[in-house]
């Protein structure tokens, strides 16, 4: 947690300094808490990434390959030929400034290079210098800069200070997507071995064991069985988790954080209770034990490599279609990349809910359905019995996670579910939800502890909106559909809006879910009394 108090941290000056942005300089030593440690040698070697070595951003010498400028230049050129997005985004920005104050990191830090336009200019200035006539002739007048070591250091600092949340892209009149620019910059940095460990290690883990956390199959099974035993002990509810079952109808893909740590585990148990109740013929996989994909924060090739296992496992197990759990960036990959990269999926069938008969036409090709789409359909068709009063101790708001919002547009499904499973639901201010939603500031590989000050700064817009509903409506629970959120929002809430807890949507579904043959429920999934304790003492 940051040493500064929220009152201190919020003293932010959004006015830019006198110094011109084109002169690069980042003092890493004095800015500890706002950057992430470099990728470890073991992970980089395992993945075959470039230039494994021990180094620190505070070092003068970053131990780059001798011809690193040439490597980046060539890599840049290659990508300009492969991605229309990059070409158009490098050439169309007019610096109108509409994006300037849309970034949570800018709002929380006041650092002008966190304005999306300048973040992109860091790359664009090199583009102009290397690839445009005007930049070659006019140099700085036309906005061109040479790629020096200081520029690269600045890239590292600021492109690992972007969570690829795409909020700025909503406001850009040309749709310039800083996430795309950041992805390209990170790919280029990967070519010379400039990266962070909180991305490289999960990537290596995921490639080897199947999940970011490096949980091996026996532990995967143990963890899940333990969670189920706990449920049985606490609530007397029995669920039978299914793992690696051939011939199941549905393959269920989850973010690994859900079966690893609170409060994700409650959501995980929520999924299993729901499946148990409706009798879904599903299986999880100890091999495809990760829906998330930190390849998205590494390179397009790595996305494809890590995503490979999903369809590969679906084919091996002989399932008909796939359901995916609550996870943000996982869904960006599943929705926008998976089918293109690892399809087509002629061995699967168009998803059809065996409970309601609904055919998920929107997943006709990819064959993968979001669990919120699946559950919303169950509720709509009255296939599950719900008692929302079991969530009455919660006054709930919903945090739209970046990727389901701005890469899918999944807004109504989770809200429909929440309004059916709890009685007290309140929206945060309208400029902070849905397509305008603010990031948790810990996505895209930045949710590590050494970066905590930056996370809290970037978390200010979300935290402040949360504080608003806490104060106005006594909101005490923020629900979300992202595993990274469930890991990063608790410290954010504790800092900016103390008293608000974080949950997944399916935790609340499971609390409200009336199961066959159940005994009267007195506790929720967290083992807490269903009634708020303060209520009992204040009631007359």
């Amino acid at each position, binding site marked *: 947690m940051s040493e500064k108090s929220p009152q201190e941290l919020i003293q932010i000056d959004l006015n830019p300094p006198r110094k011109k942005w084109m002169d690069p300089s980042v003092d890493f030593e004095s800015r500890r808490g706002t950057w992430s440690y470099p990728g470890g040698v073991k992970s980089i070697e395992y993945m075959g990434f470039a230039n494994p070595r021990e180094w620190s951003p505070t070092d003068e010498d970053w131990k780059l390959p001798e011809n690193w400028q040439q490597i980046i230049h060539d890599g840049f050129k290659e990508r300009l030929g492969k991605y229309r997005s990059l070409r*158009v985004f490098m*050439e169309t920005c007019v610096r*109108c400034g509409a994006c300037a104050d849309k970034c949570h990191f800018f709002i929380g830090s006041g650092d002008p290079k966190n304005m999306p336009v300048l973040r992109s200019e860091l790359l664009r200035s090199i583009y102009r210098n290397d690839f445009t006539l005007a930049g070659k002739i006019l140099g700085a007048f036309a906005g061109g800069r040479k790629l020096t070591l200081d520029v690269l250091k600045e890239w590292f600092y600021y492109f690992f200070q972007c969570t690829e949340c795409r909020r700025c892209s909503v406001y850009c009149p040309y749709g310039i997507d800083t996430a795309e620019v950041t992805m390209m910059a990170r790919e280029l940095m990967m070519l010379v071995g400039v990266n962070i460990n909180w991305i490289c290690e999960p990537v290596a883990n995921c490639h080897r064991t199947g999940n970011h956390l490096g949980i091996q199959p026996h532990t995967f099974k143990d963890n899940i069985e333990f969670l189920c035993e706990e449920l049985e002990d606490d609530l007397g509810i029995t669920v039978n988790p299914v793992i690696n079952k051939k011939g199941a109808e549905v393959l269920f893909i989850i973010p690994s954080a859900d079966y690893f740590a609170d409060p994700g585990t409650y959501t995980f148990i929520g999924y299993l209770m729901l499946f148990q109740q409706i009798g879904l013929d599903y299986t999880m996989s*100890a091999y495809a034990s990760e829906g998330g994909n930190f390849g998205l924060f590494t390179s397009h090739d790595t996305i494809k*490599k890590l995503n490979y296992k999903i369809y590969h496992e679906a084919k091996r197990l002989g399932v008909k279609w796939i359901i995916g759990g609550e996870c943000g960036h996982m869904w960006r990959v599943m929705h926008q990349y998976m089918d293109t990269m690892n399809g087509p999926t002629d061995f699967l069938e168009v998803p059809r809910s065996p409970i309601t008969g609904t055919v998920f036409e929107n997943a006709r090709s990819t064959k993968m359905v979001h669990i919120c789409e699946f559950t919303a359909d169950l509720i709509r068709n009255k296939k599950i019995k719900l008692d929302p009063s079991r969530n009455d101790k919660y006054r709930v708001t919903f945090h739209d996670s970046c990727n389901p919002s701005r*890469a899918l547009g999944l807004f109504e499904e989770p809200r429909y579910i929440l309004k059916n499973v709890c009685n007290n639901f309140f929206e945060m201010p309208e400029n902070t939800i849905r397509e305008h939603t603010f990031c948790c500031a810990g996505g895209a590989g930045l949710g590590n502890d050494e970066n905590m000050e930056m996370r809290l700064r970037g978390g200010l817009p979300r935290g402040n909106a949360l504080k608003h509903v806490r104060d106005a409506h006594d909101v005490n629970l923020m629900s979300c559909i992202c595993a990274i959120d469930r890991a990063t929002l608790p410290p954010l809430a504790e800092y900016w809006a103390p008293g608000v807890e974080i949950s997944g949507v399916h935790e609340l579904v499971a609390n409200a879910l009336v199961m066959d043959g159940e005994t009267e429920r007195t506790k929720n999934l967290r083992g807490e009394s269903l009634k708020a304790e303060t209520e009992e003492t204040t009631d007359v």
Partner: protein
Amino acid sequence: MGALVSLVAVAVLALLAVTAVASDNLRLVFGAVIPGVAFAVFLVGVVARVTRWARAPVPFRIPTTAGQQKSLPWIKNSELDNPSGTLGVVGRMFLEVLFFRSLFRNTKVELITDKEKVNYIGTKYLWAAAMAFHWSMLIVVFRHFRFFVEPVPRVVEIIQSLDGFFQVGVPVIYATSVLLIVSLGYLLLRRLADAKVKYISLPTDYFALYLLLGIAISGFLMRHLEKVDIVNVKAAIAGWASFQLVAPEGVGALYFIHVFLVSVLFVYFPFSKLLHAPGVFLSPTRNLANNNRAKRHVNPWNPPIVGHTYAEWEEEFHDKLVASGFVLDKE
């Protein structure tokens, strides 16, 4: 600093044009040769650029979704902000290109530090100025067709009379002439006065504004102050069209300034940020439908990458899998 350098640059260009009045040869160069060449550069340059964009592949379908997706039939989707098909994309692009829909969403952040409050206030000034500038510009350019086409097309005359609806001044002052200069002035002032926008501005951002202002003001003055001999101008323009270079007679310095700055704009356009005009049509976050899961998008260069296969995984964790009671593919 950049603002000043750009101002000087445009002023020098304007002065350069003034020298043309002095000699017949220069009148021919500035009045006929340069505009002709500049226009050719503009056409070839823009076509070349757009072709290069269009030829670059779109490996992934990455629309930015700004509304509800189309999923279950009973959930109303937002077709214009999150198109599910071609029709929606056309609608989205139509609103984006003609009415700057994304810019219309603009908000301004307000940080009240002593109350620990962050507000987001809707702001439409930039949108309004951008709309005023671009639409005026379009109409002004369109009005110029009366110099190029004989007889003047009916539609040009209609637009012209609508534009002069207020009947102020002799000759009539067009609403768009005023709007053009005022909106450019606002955009320039905003760049200079808003600390954040000033900080992000490059010298070339000012250059484009000064250039456009120079063109607009010289054009305005020519119509209302100098009163250029239109017949001669038309004759010169008719000369370009038939590839016969004629230096216009009976026109003064303003005419040369106007035409030369337009020529500079033509040459500058394909090499600058002014390309945002065609660029907006090709932006993959706006011009693609969000139907990724319904319809497969094909990447023309999809690399043949294979991940860690199940067989490799099973082999690596064989003993642990056996000990945990997993059923293996390979015993």
